């Protein structure tokens, strides 16, 4: 089984935030409002942070894109009471919205702030817009589906649950399905998460960390790499190549 990981080259990243925007579009992540921004209610599955050091004129700025780290030892998985978040066999830490109680213990436990609580329904005023992905309050096969089902792609998620980046596992699963049906595609090359695909400088890479021939493995072998908050021993699988 694969062990999916992501490598982000901070030397190439220019902080354009195409990754954050592609994530918003791909996963129908709701946008906020100025009020929500001040209240820290808005939702970001992917964020780009800037860390400043130094005094004028010796100023050092690190720009660091942060999806979910998909840790190998995820603290969030430890603390979720209903097993709504769990680590899949292929290493992706997934959120099952059906099970999520909204207790927010995982937000308390996550060292990377990767998780956000969904404070409002996507059926609220500003979400009733045609740019929303397909309407999931849909009738399919005679059954009316409520908002909490959360299937992919473009899940329409209920409020009151916790959300986070998923390494676009819907793309991976769909690719696995196609590969099973004989398609000649490779995950990590032809199929990657939306943020990796969108990066204009090609600073992001995705692949199987357990495969010594994958791009990510080769990159990690060729340069120094850093993991954020390594002292937490979460062993994140989103790994950075410093400048």
């Amino acid at each position, binding site marked *: 089984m694969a062990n999916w990981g992501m490598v982000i080259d901070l030397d190439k990243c220019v902080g354009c935030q195409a990754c954050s925007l592609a994530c918003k579009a791909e996963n129908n992540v709701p946008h906020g409002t100025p009020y*929500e*921004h001040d*209240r*820290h*209610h*808005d939702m970001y599955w992917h*964020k780009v*942070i*800037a*860390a*400043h*050091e130094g005094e004028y004129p010796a100023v*050092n700025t*690190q720009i*660091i894109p*942060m999806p979910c780290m998909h840790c190998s030892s995820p*603290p969030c*998985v*430890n*603390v*979720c*009471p*209903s*097993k709504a978040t769990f680590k899949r066999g292929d290493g992706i830490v997934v959120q099952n919205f059906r*099970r*999520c*109680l*909204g*207790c*927010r*213990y995982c*937000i*308390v*436990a*996550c*060292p*990377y*702030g990767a*998780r*956000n*609580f*969904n*404070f*409002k*329904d996507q059926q*609220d005023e500003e979400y009733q817009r045609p740019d929303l992905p397909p309407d999931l309050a849909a009738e399919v096969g005679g059954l009316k589906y409520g908002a*909490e089902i959360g299937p992919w792609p473009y899940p329409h998620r*209920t*409020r*009151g*649950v*916790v959300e986070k980046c998923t390494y676009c596992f819907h793309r991976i699963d769909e690719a696995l399905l196609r590969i099973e049906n004989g398609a000649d595609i490779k995950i990590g090359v032809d199929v990657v998460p939306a943020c990796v695909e969108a990066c204009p400088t090609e600073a992001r890479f995705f692949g199987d960390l357990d495969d010594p021939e994958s791009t990510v493995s080769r990159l990690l072998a060729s340069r120094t790499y850093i993991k*954020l*908050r390594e002292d*937490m021993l979460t062993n994140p699988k989103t790994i950075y190549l410093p400048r």
Partner: protein
Amino acid sequence: MQLDFAAIKGDSRNYKILVGVLAAVVIAGLAAYGVAYMYGFRLWGVNNYVTWGQLITVDFFFIGLSAGSLVVSSLVYVFGQERYKPIGRIAVLMGLLLMISAMLTVLTDLGRPEKFWRLFMYFYLSNMKSMFGINGIFYAGYILLLGTYLVAALSGSKLTKFIAPVAVLWAMLVHMGTGAIVGFIETRHVMYSPLKPIEFISAAFASGLALVMLLSYLTLKFSKRPLDKDMFVSLGKFLVVLILVLMVLVAVDKLTHFYPPKREAVMFLISGPWAWIFWLQVVLGYFIPLAILCNPWLRKKVNWVIAACAICVVGIFFERAAIIFPGLSQPLEYYPGEIAGIWGARGGFLIMPAETLQTLGIVAVLGLVFVLGLKYMDLLPAPAAAEHAEGEASEQATPAAEGGQA
């Protein structure tokens, strides 16, 4: 000494007003929750940084108080100390009510409250690595146990001899589990400590005892039941010991984290924007009660002792808040340096009306059931003969107040 217990009549106007006010607050709280349920938690003060707010603070507080109440009950039912019997039943009832109220706060704090049963129904099928999951088992068993305990105590059954020790020990397990919820989280340095479970139970004992003393004193006084002032004074001495133990634990915990080099968490707690909570905890929870209860003159005066208890309870509330708010507000250090803007900002918390009203509503539920319980259950020691006469005299003097018979 065979002690008789009797319910109160509950006819007086004051009583009815009390019930009415509490009921009104409960309804207001219910309405506030209904609104929050419809519009989402954006009506609350919680956000993605300080993600637990008033409700979880009250939850921790109440679970602690519940465990602490059982301490008093253990004096009666475990150690057979007859002199504390008058307040034994109140302690058991409070234990149960506080626990149920705490569960109400947890339930209403969930983002998807209709799934609350997952915490309790799955037992070992829940995530047993999660303290919430383990506590689900503890809490569920605890409530059942307390229910049995209360029934046994009210019917004066001999079973209390067996149930009480189990309940008290289970109470300690429950609250240490609660402490572990925060204590085991390495991400939040303010919370992270192996001492947290013990600190929690110690705070529970102190605040629980204080609350039982406070409530039982007030109840006995206002219902004109026999009040043994010396009992309270002696409990006050016991409280000193409990507060001292708690102080030592807190001091050791903070000093450990204060030792260089890594001390940002403690500095954030004691000198950051939330420092006022910590200092209220220390002053109201420890210093002032100790000052009163160690003072050779004041500690013999029941009113002062009870005042110390009230202040201690408030202080311990701030202790719970000091874990939640600064704990969650401290910015996470994703990377060395100053992280710009919202990502590096500390969490804030607004006191929002919906959340506050709901919290007050749940406290009012507790109060309401307690007050009604006084009327429908034999919780209080029966009025003594001397008080009969007193009661008579006052009845004759104010016949209308008692329902107007002469």
